[in-house]
């Protein structure tokens, strides 16, 4: 007879198999990573360029990225898009602070063709004036919508205060669109796309010849190797509230500059961060959503760049509970700094994190993403074995120490908009 009150026995995860992609060199210091033997016909190629928002200005980075397929001397943007459609390919371009990543998706039998079309479009891009005007109009309209949202306003503000006086603090404002000249985009493209490739990730069952052809063609985008900025951040904590009279909710962002994977405290800190706010059963969720009902969601996150990271708590709450919410966040941090995490909770989080890592390593696409997460910091895949070991061993005392050492309330910037 089934006794429903007794939970099934659990089997812990002891180890996970991590695999690395094959590595080739496109040019000195510019690798191509290839994951093949895929069980299905999907494939993708990811080109990473040193063309992020910090290299010059966000407006140039963003518009150049948006106009990569805007036409060449011999082909219009429409013709190029039709050619990509004819092989069933999709592409997207994302721009972060340090990189612009162009991804092409196609069935493996068409990837090489799609890449050739893309390669030609990118190398010969001429940025027609008409296309520049069109994208400026479209982006400006979208920005207007974005700037009405409290979460967007709070996010921009905290970025400005955390990274003040460095290129990482730059955001696009409405006025920027009027200042852009076509020639600036051409120069940006020349410097950071035609000479700015940093690495390539390839997934898919292609023939070795196809892979080598792609590798050779990628050399056209290689130039000098860039070193990311080494910025000094002030570390000053700011408390800012912006009133938005028509808002129904208040967006809150609480954060500070932090380290990335290269720091010896990283793994212990991220276990502490999970307990605090990085899973559905976290303390912030249990208290502020599931007990008080102040919000639809609240979380805390670790973000990583090449030379640093940052920590952030984010939520949108009912307008009248802004202060109560900030107080509860403070209480939760203090609790982590003064009390030991109960064994049951710590064990739960350990199992949860290992289960999530197992999932994050499931399948070739996921595995390549994991690899990319360590490659960025010049580390190798053995990091994840250290991670498993550290998660298994960590004690409640270490969790408390992490909270005390890195999350002093007075060191945190607090932004609210609404």
């Amino acid at each position, binding site marked *: 007879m089934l006794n429903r009150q007794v939970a099934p026995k659990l089997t812990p995860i002891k180890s*996970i198999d991590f695999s690395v992609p094959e590595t080739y060199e496109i040019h000195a210091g510019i690798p191509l990573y290839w994951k093949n033997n895929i069980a299905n016909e999907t494939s993708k190629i990811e080109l990473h360029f040193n063309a992020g928002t910090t290299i010059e200005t966000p407006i140039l980075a963003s518009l150049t990225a948006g106009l990569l397929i805007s036409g060449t001397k011999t082909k219009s943007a429409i013709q190029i898009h039709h050619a990509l459609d004819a092989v069933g390919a999709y592409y997207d371009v994302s721009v972060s602070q340090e990189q612009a990543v162009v991804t092409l998706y196609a069935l493996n039998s068409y990837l090489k063709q799609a890449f050739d079309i893309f390669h030609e479009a990118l190398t010969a891009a001429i940025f027609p004036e008409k296309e520049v005007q069109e994208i400026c109009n479209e982006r400006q309209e979208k920005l207007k919508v974005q700037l009405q949202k409290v979460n967007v306003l709070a996010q921009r503000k905290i970025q400005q205060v955390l990274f003040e006086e460095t290129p990482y603090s730059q955001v696009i404002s409405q006025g920027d669109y009027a200042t852009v000249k076509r020639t600036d985009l051409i120069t940006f493209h020349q410097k950071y796309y035609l000479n700015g490739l940093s690495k390539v990730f390839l997934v898919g069952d292609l023939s070795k010849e196809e892979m080598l052809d792609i590798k050779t063609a990628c050399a056209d985008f290689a130039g000098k190797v860039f070193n990311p900025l080494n910025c000094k951040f002030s570390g000053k904590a700011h408390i800012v509230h912006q009133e938005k009279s028509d808002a129904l909710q208040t967006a809150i962002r609480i954060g500070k500059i932090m380290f990335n994977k290269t720091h010896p405290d990283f793994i212990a800190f991220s276990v502490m961060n999970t307990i605090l706010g990085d899973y559905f059963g976290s303390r912030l969720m249990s208290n502020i959503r599931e007990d008080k009902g102040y919000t639809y969601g609240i979380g805390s996150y670790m973000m990583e760049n090449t030379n640093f990271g940052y920590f952030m708590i984010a939520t949108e709450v009912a307008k009248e509970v802004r202060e109560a919410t900030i107080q509860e966040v403070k209480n939760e941090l203090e609790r982590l700094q003064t009390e030991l995490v109960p064994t049951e909770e710590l064990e739960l989080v350990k199992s949860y994190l290992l289960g999530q890592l197992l999932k994050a390593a499931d399948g070739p696409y996921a595995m390549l993403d994991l690899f990319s997460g360590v490659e960025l910091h010049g580390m190798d895949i053995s990091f994840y074995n250290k991670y498993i070991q550290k998660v298994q061993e960590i004690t409640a005392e270490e969790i408390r120490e992490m909270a005390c050492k890195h999350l002093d309330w007075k060191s945190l910037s607090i932004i609210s908009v609404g």
Partner: protein
Amino acid sequence: MIHFERFKLENGLTVLFHKEASTPMAVVNLLYDVGARDESEEKTGFAHLFEHLMFGGSVNIPDFDGPLQAAGGESNAFTSNDITNYYDVLPAHNLDTALWLESDRMLSLAFTDKSLEVQRNVVIEEFKQRYLNQPYGDVWLELRPLAYTKHPYKWATIGKEIKHIEDAKMSDVKAFFKKHYHPSNCILCVIGNFELDYVKERVNHFFGSIPKAKKSARILPLEPAQDRFKSKTLVRNVPADAFYYAFKMPERKHPGYYFADLLSDIMGREKVSKMYVDLIKKQKLVSEINAYITGSMDEGLFIITGKLNEGKSFAELDKEIWKILAHYKTTLISKKELEQIKIKLRTARAFQDQGLLNRAMNLSFFELLGDANGINEEQEIYQSIHADDLRTFANQLFAKKNGVLLKVKKKKNA
């Protein structure tokens, strides 16, 4: 081709199993055949509020998420106008944990007052965050009642108004559970590296003793045939004038559903579609434009939406939109364009099928439509569509009296 096995428990629970040997994870997906269309007009938003309560503890297990997280897993759910879908993703060796948790909440909930009170507040904040505190956020709250007069699609999943959620009572919650949450109203799908016999045995072990209940017949008010074009204007604090044309399209099981889907792909193609080229590139009338379908079980909506450029009028736009619709009614889509869209569909589908969770949700959904094997037949349907099918269909779809228009006008001095 996605291979699957199907079996039924004596209490009426339908189970699908898809073996995937390459993964260390398992997916457990439960599709309950209940959505916002099953609510009464005075108590809307209930199916979705109920989904939140499903995480508030069940009859024998006080906390749903904790044990799942301790097993290394994760869970979530969504509610639509048609269905409520719950899923768990966890390491395969802990499959039992997901089956134990899901079977207990199918058996009965804890029904605590605290859970109801808190989730009411959480859902009210969700209502504000997603529908009221965003520019254009309330469009679907307005568009639905414009397009539907009788059918329950006239309200959004989140509910008609916050008051309905505030007023939800425990007795309503219990009645809703009794009516909709039982084995014969659910499709369970398991994916992982298991053998069929093992899955049968484990599912039976946890779900077999849940009492059988009768699946209630769904009798929804029929939407009367629309007899005239309708439009409505909202004035809002938004940065640009926006438009939403909505045309009634066939229900999910009708062949016309596939025509509508393909036509929306063709008309909404970024950068190259006729709408994009004519209205954005040539005439500079709009800053963005798109076409898509709602994809609902009953008669759905084919949407054409976008934003006007500063200084352009709704009247100018209207003229151009009808010109474009007339084009699709009279001109055959070229063979080349049709081939392009079909190969794009194939690519998109191959990437979707990569994900275990996607496979589980799709199998369950097709089973609800009548046969999970529909997942393997759908591509063939799309590939067999001809240009003249689409032209004929466009003539029915884009009849003027079949449409509505919602305009969101920018408030002066906003």
